[in-house]
């Protein structure tokens, strides 16, 4: 095709920051239990986050990346997916992972430096998070290719941050999804920051959604703090992927209300006023207002929910702290399907580490 083309990026928002409606509600919102489930999962996510940060601050867990303010994206991702779909998440997707079966105790284990936290305690085919930024995206393209080759009608949902869009992996995955018509949905949590680097220093493009245009796939921008818009956009994209094998890139606009992780101090590089302004847009307050207005939520329900979540989380913390340590040999037992005989010596040396040296093991 030659010549100049016109493109535009659509932005979707139903609820303004006060929880007022901008647009007529989509049909699925007549499903009240679903609306309540979105809300309840967001509240659980917020409280889980507080617990995790508290565990880290008291030396009972390691570095933790909070999802404060970005709960709607991950919760709606988790709820919009079918059980048999595959989630290829990034590290601010604990809510989606939990909706799909991960326990809070596992999350604490993972960030507490225990590999068992990556087991996801379910039979699901979801992938664990990738710490090296954006590397999950090409894996997700591989999962989507496998689903397609196997003739399944399942789809892949994968996610990343705004900073991740600067890596080649992002464009590589997007490009392939277009060329091969992959059943995949890419969700960008655009929380405006990549540690200390603001989005303006990652790209000159006014939207991240428009990167889809270069890949020849659907791209849409959504208010990531408006759960109705997020759920709508993700479930439609999943539907398209399932029915027509067409990929979609979703840019969900949100804001990182926390430090990057518990190891970071955002006040070094981020304006306090900017942070304050974004608190006005956070998703939980907004959605609560909306539910109030719809007559679907009251104080009593809120109280009950809070105490239920606290109870669940307290139990999870207890379970996490009481978990028996893995045996020392666990550090080598999962390396291969079968322990190579050359490592048998090292495996036994691990058990009495500070006794003799691990010099044995290489000799047969």
């Amino acid at each position, binding site marked *: 095709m030659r010549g100049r083309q016109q493109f535009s990026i659509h932005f979707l928002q139903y609820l303004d920051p006060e929880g007022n409606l901008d647009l007529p509600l989509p049909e699925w919102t007549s499903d009240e239990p679903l609306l309540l489930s979105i809300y309840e999962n967001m509240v659980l996510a917020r409280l889980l986050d507080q617990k995790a940060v508290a565990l880290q601050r008291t030396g009972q867990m390691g570095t933790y990346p909070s999802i404060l303010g970005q709960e709607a994206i991950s919760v709606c991702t988790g709820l919009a997916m079918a059980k048999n779909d595959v989630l290829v998440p990034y590290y601010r997707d604990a809510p989606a992972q939990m909706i799909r079966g991960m326990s809070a105790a596992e999350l604490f284990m993972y960030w507490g430096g225990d590999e068992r936290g990556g087991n996801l305690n379910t039979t699901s085919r979801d992938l664990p998070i990738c*710490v090296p930024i954006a590397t999950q995206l090409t894996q997700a393209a591989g999962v989507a290719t496998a689903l397609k080759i196997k003739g399944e009608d399942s789809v892949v949902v994968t996610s990343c941050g705004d900073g991740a869009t600067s890596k080649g992996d992002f464009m590589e995955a997007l490009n392939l999804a277009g060329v091969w018509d992959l059943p995949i949905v890419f969700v960008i949590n655009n929380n405006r920051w990549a540690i200390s680097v603001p989005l303006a220093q990652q790209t000159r493009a006014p939207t991240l959604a428009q990167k889809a245009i270069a890949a020849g796939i659907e791209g849409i921008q959504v208010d990531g703090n408006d759960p109705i818009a997020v759920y709508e956009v993700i479930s439609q994209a999943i539907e398209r992927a399932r029915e027509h094998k067409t990929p979609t890139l979703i840019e969900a606009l949100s804001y990182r209300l926390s430090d990057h992780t518990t190891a970071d101090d955002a006040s070094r590089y981020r304006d306090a006023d900017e942070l304050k302004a974004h608190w006005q847009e956070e998703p939980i307050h907004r959605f609560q207002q909306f539910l109030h207005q719809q007559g679907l939520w009251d104080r009593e329900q809120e109280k009950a929910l809070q105490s239920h979540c606290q109870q669940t989380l307290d139990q999870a913390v207890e379970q996490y702290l009481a978990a028996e340590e893995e045996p020392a040999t666990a550090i080598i037992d999962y390396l291969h399907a079968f322990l190579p005989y050359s*490592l048998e010596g090292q495996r036994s040396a691990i058990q009495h580490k500070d006794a*003799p040296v691990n010099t044995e093991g290489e000799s047969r």
Partner: protein
Amino acid sequence: MNMSFSTSHSPNTDCAAEPHESPSPEIGGEIQADDKECVLVEAINMALHYEMARDDSVVVLGEDVATNGGVFRATLDLKQTFGAARVLDTPLAESLIGGLSIGMATQGLKPVAEIQFMGFMFAALEQLTCHAARMRNRTRGRLACPLVVRIPCGGGIHAPEHHSESTEALLAHTPGLRVVIPSSPIRAYGLLLAAIRDPDPVIFLEPKRIYRAQAQRVCNDGQALPLDTCFTLREGEDITLVSWGALISECTQVADQMLEQGIAVELIDVATVSPLDIATILQSVAKTGRCVIAHEAPKTGGIGGEIAAQLAEHALLDLKAPVLRVAGYDTIMPYAKKEALYLPSAAQISSAIQQVLSFA
């Protein structure tokens, strides 16, 4: 016989950090020499400040290095001092950082790039291995890559996955890359200056476990320490203990303990793990006849194996006992809960020494 890195230098210790390379080109303004009590990461910061002031072709780049001063604060205040044109926050892309540095270096700049953690260097390796290491050779010296890539390495800080590995052997196995690992604030300062002034690419690995472990008086005089040279930290006749990076702390502790028992350990900090200064190690083993090598990286394919092989090639008749290695296990670096189990300990180093000494 590959002995071209033989050294005529006398052994260096932290206090008498000779011999010094004299700073060569004079570009920037006057620099005041001053002593500062500082930890390793501060020594790195001091060296960066010194060299950026002295040589305006030095440019710092990487993720979060400018406004934030680096996630470990190694590049603190550089942007404030030298401006945003020379201290660059890059987009989040390691392959970019590698290629960008090469491009800059071919045009006469001296990029000092930071890769945030060693686990994130892999996307940059294509550029470093396929190009930075080869540019001089490929152009028969017409173009070169005088760049430095600083990368925090090693475990021991209870970090998440991919934040604790020791993969220096991967880099050392690339001819054309220099791989340097300091083990103290003084050596960090002097070796980083040398790395920046070196006309070829240097991967500068910073053991993050000792970033803030021990303060030392560092003379901010712009004096570089020699690359490609081992540092003999303790002299002794009974056994040679070879190590580098963070483990030098445990080795020093062991050497001191041994001395109390009447065993004189000669402790060698390899510092530049590639190209290897085997001459210093051979000289030492010619004297002691015994050798233990300690490193944090997995044992198989580690640099300890290379040292042991060269000892077998060149020092067989000097050796009174087998050379032993104390190293990480041949497994994936465990997450925080079990990282101490993985990391070689002082006790393991001691018992290896005992074992070698008791070999009949």
